[in-house]
């Protein structure tokens, strides 16, 4: 048996395959296709203090090997989450992590405080990289000072594991990773979507109601792998790789480049079983190559 587990501090994950926020609903959308509890963890939908309707339709456009989305954090707010969703998802036998979002630092702080009380949520993912909201979001993730401040503020009130999700839309992502590590982040996850845009040529207008949106899918994988590699060399906390992972080889690219774990995003739209399948694939690869612990291949290309 190959060891697949990894940990963030003292928080154990049974395997390195998580699902990415905003692409896996609250998990239950996938119950018909798999046993969600087999995953290393699930990061639920981006959650805000107040309910949000998100952006106007159209919110999605297909691009070469990817999609643009401009959902804009549609969700029913933390009250609804706590009352309606939490009881249901806390029955999953895996780490359920909430992705939190705000327009102001106070929003993040208030959310973190609320979630700190939820016993079955062992970690939050601090999203400072959403490109689809007018206020907050990516603005926090593209200014070093703001990234520091929001991380520090949340760290002050949140006692469990704090994962900070970084924006790729910056000149030097390593600076950001080091900054949030210094402010007490227990892990960084990257990348969120690249800011992109698509024009509907037939109608001669932007494809999205918001004009720009977030690019995800295999198209961004080379950028994501590069950033993960850069960050993993620089920080001491575990790095979670995200971006365009469709299959086993994609996941292995991230692990070999230095990610301790990975998140499957857009792939779940095309194959709802993608995450589970690549988890099996990773195990097979390790066995075939004679490794007994996944840690042996994390950052292997640097060895």
């Amino acid at each position: 048996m190959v060891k697949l587990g990894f940990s963030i501090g003292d928080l154990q994950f049974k395997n390195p395959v998580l699902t990415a926020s905003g692409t896996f609903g609250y998990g239950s959308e996938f119950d018909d296709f798999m046993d969600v509890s087999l995953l290393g963890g699930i990061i639920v939908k981006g959650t805000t203090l107040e309910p949000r309707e998100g952006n106007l339709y159209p919110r999605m456009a297909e691009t070469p090997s990817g999609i643009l989305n401009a959902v804009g954090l549609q969700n029913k707010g933390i009250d609804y989450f706590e009352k309606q969703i939490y009881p249901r998802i806390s029955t999953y036998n895996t780490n359920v992590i909430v992705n939190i979002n705000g327009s102001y630092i106070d929003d993040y702080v208030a959310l973190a405080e609320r979630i700190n009380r939820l016993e079955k949520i062992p970690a939050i993912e601090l999203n400072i990289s959403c490109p689809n909201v007018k206020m907050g979001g990516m603005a926090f993730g593209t200014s070093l000072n703001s990234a520091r401040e929001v991380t520090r503020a949340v760290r002050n009130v949140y006692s469990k594991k704090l994962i900070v999700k970084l924006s790729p839309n910056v000149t030097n992502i390593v600076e950001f990773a080091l900054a949030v590590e210094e402010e007490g982040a227990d892990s960084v996850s990257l990348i969120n979507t690249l800011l992109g845009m698509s024009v509907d040529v037939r109608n001669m207008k932007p494809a999205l109601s918001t004009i720009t949106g977030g690019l995800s899918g295999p198209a961004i994988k080379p950028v994501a792998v590069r950033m993960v590699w850069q960050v993993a060399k620089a920080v001491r906390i575990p790095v979670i790789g995200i971006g365009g992972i469709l299959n086993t080889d994609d996941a292995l690219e991230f692990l070999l480049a230095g990610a301790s774990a990975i998140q499957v995003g857009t792939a779940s739209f095309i194959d709802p079983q993608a995450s589970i399948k690549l988890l099996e694939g990773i195990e097979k690869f390790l066995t075939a190559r004679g490794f007994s612990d996944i840690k042996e291949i994390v950052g292997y290309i640097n060895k």
Partner: protein
Amino acid sequence: MAKRIESLKILENKRLNNEYFTLELSGNDTIPEMKPGQFAQVKVEGSPETFLRRPISIHDIDPQKNSFKLLIQIAGKGTETLSKLRMGDYLNIIYPLGNSFSLPKNGQKPLLAGGGCGIAPLLFMARYLNNHGFEPVILLGFRNKERIIEYEEYLDLGEVFLTTEDGSRGERGFLTDHPALKSLHYDMVYCCGPDPMMKAVASLCSERGITCEVSLENLMGCGIGACLCCVVDTVRGNLCTCTDGPVFNIKELKW
């Protein structure tokens, strides 16, 4: 009705005209119970331009044969690639997805109105109504007589009226101009077609206080409620076309 992901065998790919074809599918397992209005998310293999699955309505089912059909219009790269599938090839689909048309109340008279590709879910619905003791009025609209598809299939299922925009067969004009819409008696309308057509039918129904359900065709990322890309603005806020729909009562829509 648990959702499934399956590779189904193509029993037949029947070309209807230069734009439309039907695929008949069957699997090793018994096909699941499905309701009219539901759809499948179809994987397009071998089309580099087609990254996402394509939503296609369940067009007709044949429980005896353990098979069902999709009616597809060639609209772009994805559907074009699908049109080249051959008997014996496999198609990977996620299904059945979405809600379905509701049945009329006892004694109510239903009318089905379908334009172009919008007839796709209505054949199944007509059959379903028959099975539940309803005989619908069926109103089909096409651009011209060359584009008429599946007309014969409907003849046994209710009273059928036809319009073509150029008058080459049936009544001339838009489906929404057909006298049947004004003159006949019906209590419940099921409508699928291009947005302007559905909106016209919807406003006609609102005026006359007739219940009307429409089937929407928003762009979909996942088809299972995970991406929130397919939303439609309703009186209850943004709802997902893939899970709260594709069928909506027009009272819910902010049209």
